[in-house]
């Protein structure tokens, strides 16, 4: 279970047969363990949803009330007559074939799944990347200027930004941008949707259209995350700035900027990698809100729809998607950490 082998290989020890095999074994163990976590998460969500939802309520509430036989048939179609674990296992068995079950409405989940995955990933990856770049640079900048007015300003600013819920931030961004759009007389940036419906742009025009839709929701996702990262990055950099090896580098004749850039930043980035992995899931929730506010039909929007439609299959599919993303982020973070810091040895599985 230790990243030891990966560390040894990364340190440039030996990329021969045994080393590759050890890395492969490490990767396999990680995948098995994390895959188990994903399935457990999906099962928890599925079980909770099945126990608390009543997918027949809508049918029963119709006027005139449909005959009991219709309701029973629907219950059978949804598998409500089989025990919960068995239903879950049957759902799982379909996954390798690309069959994600059916919605309450009778449509295959897989129909919408991949398109929505793409939508969510586009939005969330753009937002996260922007957040990391903004947050890390703001944090480093402020650490180097700690105690000055700009540092204080950023500190209070990030606190306020972290206090604004994502669903408010989205609306506020729209309110702020509306006069700008009006000033230009056109929709410079769009407030809702992924593309302009009915537009027949191709090539660059289509890409531009997408970007103009992407800008505001990306900002809504990125700003709070950036505020969050910047505070931790600032603390991590401050820790490093006080360390002996930087003083040694200065004594060796490097200027402050050189020493910090060449030796300090790399070390200060390391705790951020772990932080990113741990909080990735938390920030995904912000993505769910953003999709709703900006009218993107992604996974988050689907989750809210699934809950309103009392659909356990949709909930389980979205949960699995989220769990896989979080787990992959964790795996990536582990690998990056080992590559950044060859000292990481498997004393403790993180």
């Amino acid at each position, binding site marked *: 279970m230790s990243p030891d082998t990966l560390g040894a290989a990364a340190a440039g020890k030996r990329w021969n047969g045994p080393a590759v095999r050890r890395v492969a074994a490490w990767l396999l163990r990680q995948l098995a363990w994390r895959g188990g*976590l*994903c399935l*457990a*998460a999906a099962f*928890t*969500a599925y079980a*909770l*949803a099945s*126990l*608390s*939802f*009543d997918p027949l309520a809508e049918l029963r509430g119709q006027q005139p009330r449909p005959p009991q036989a219709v309701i029973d048939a629907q219950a059978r179609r949804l598998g409500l007559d089989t025990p919960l674990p068995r239903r879950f296992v049957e759902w799982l068995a379909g996954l390798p074939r690309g069959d994600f079950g059916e919605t309450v409405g009778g449509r295959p989940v897989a129909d919408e799944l991949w398109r929505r995955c793409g939508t969510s990933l586009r939005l969330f990856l753009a937002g996260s990347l922007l957040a990391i770049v903004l947050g890390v640079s703001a944090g480093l900048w402020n650490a180097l200027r700690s105690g000055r007015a700009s540092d204080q300003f950023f*500190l*209070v600013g990030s*606190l*306020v930004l*972290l*206090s*604004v*819920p*994502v*669903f*408010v931030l989205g*609306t*506020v961004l*729209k*309110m702020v941008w*509306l006069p700008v759009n009006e000033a230009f007389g056109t929709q410079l940036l769009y407030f809702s949707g992924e593309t302009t419906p009915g537009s027949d742009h191709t090539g660059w025009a289509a890409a531009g259209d997408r970007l103009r839709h992407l800008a505001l929701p990306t900002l809504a996702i990125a700003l709070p995350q950036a505020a969050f990262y910047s505070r931790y990055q600032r603390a991590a950099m401050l820790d490093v700035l006080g360390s002996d090896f930087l003083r040694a580098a200065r004594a060796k004749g490097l200027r402050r900027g050189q020493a910090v850039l060449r030796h300090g930043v790399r070390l200060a980035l390391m705790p951020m990698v772990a932080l990113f992995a*741990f*909080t990735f*899931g*938390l920030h*995904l*929730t912000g993505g*769910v*809100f953003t999709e*709703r506010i900006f009218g993107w039909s992604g996974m988050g929007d689907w*989750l*809210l729809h699934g*809950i309103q439609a*009392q659909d356990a299959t949709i*909930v389980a599919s*979205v*949960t699995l998607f*989220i*769990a896989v993303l*979080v*787990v992959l982020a964790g795996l990536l973070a582990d690998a990056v950490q080992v590559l950044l810091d060859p000292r990481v040895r498997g004393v*403790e599985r993180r």
Partner: protein
Amino acid sequence: MTAEPSAALPARAGDVRRDSLALRMLRDPMAVVGALLLALLVGLAVLGPWLWPYDHTTQRPEAMLAEPSAKHWLGTARLGEDVLAQCVRGLQKSLVIGVLVAVISTALATAVGLAAGYFGKRADRALMWGVDMLLILPSFLVVAVISPTLRDRSWLYMVLVIALFQWTLTARVIRARTLSLRGRQFVGAARYMGAGAGWIVRKHLVPHLVPLLVIDCTLHVSAAILSEAGLSYFGFGIQAPDVSLGSLVADGSGSALTYPWVFLAPVGFLVVTVTGVGLLGEALRRALDEGEAHAV
């Protein structure tokens, strides 16, 4: 307890530290601003209902969506409800939920983190596996999914569920800290003198964790207020006719551009509350860091 000479010493040292902590906090403008904001908000939440004749359910059809005026300081909402009265009601909910969730989840995190870190091996494996699983299940998802079940019950159940899914990150941090503390000499010394696990945990580990716990507790207050607001915004939290800041924001966001006060008032209360808690937490972290630096 009183007969032990050793017990008197740390107590006095603790007093000294607490004094200087209070002094340090008073010198920090961040702490003062945060504390003042929170005192104001708590005062408003407690006294508000006596200060004006409306409560959150009063509807005045003759004054629907009225602009802020002397009679209605923050205007009225769609059915003529006084926005200030609604916000104060929401504020009460937010504050109570924030504090309750913070206390429950910090306690839970401490128990699990200490158990995993101190007893190690199998307990550690099992507990951390559970923590990891909860970390990949967003709490919003879980609470939203079981919200139909909670709908007819007291909002206290919601508090429990939010707390149940919010302690995990803190537990990990506490476990890591416990692991490193456990290897320190004073713990070993206590063990060789025959101290039991309970004694070591209470007298040697917990005191070292207190600064961390205090800071995390404030973080949990903010996080809980925000998650309640998010849940209520999407209709999974506090249900009508009761209101919360989140549901008020949701009601107001549709008319944010035409009747801005309906939207901006609850947003203002929400942001100021969470900022106040955040300022206090940040100042606390600084003061405790400084204290630790002096102590070493």
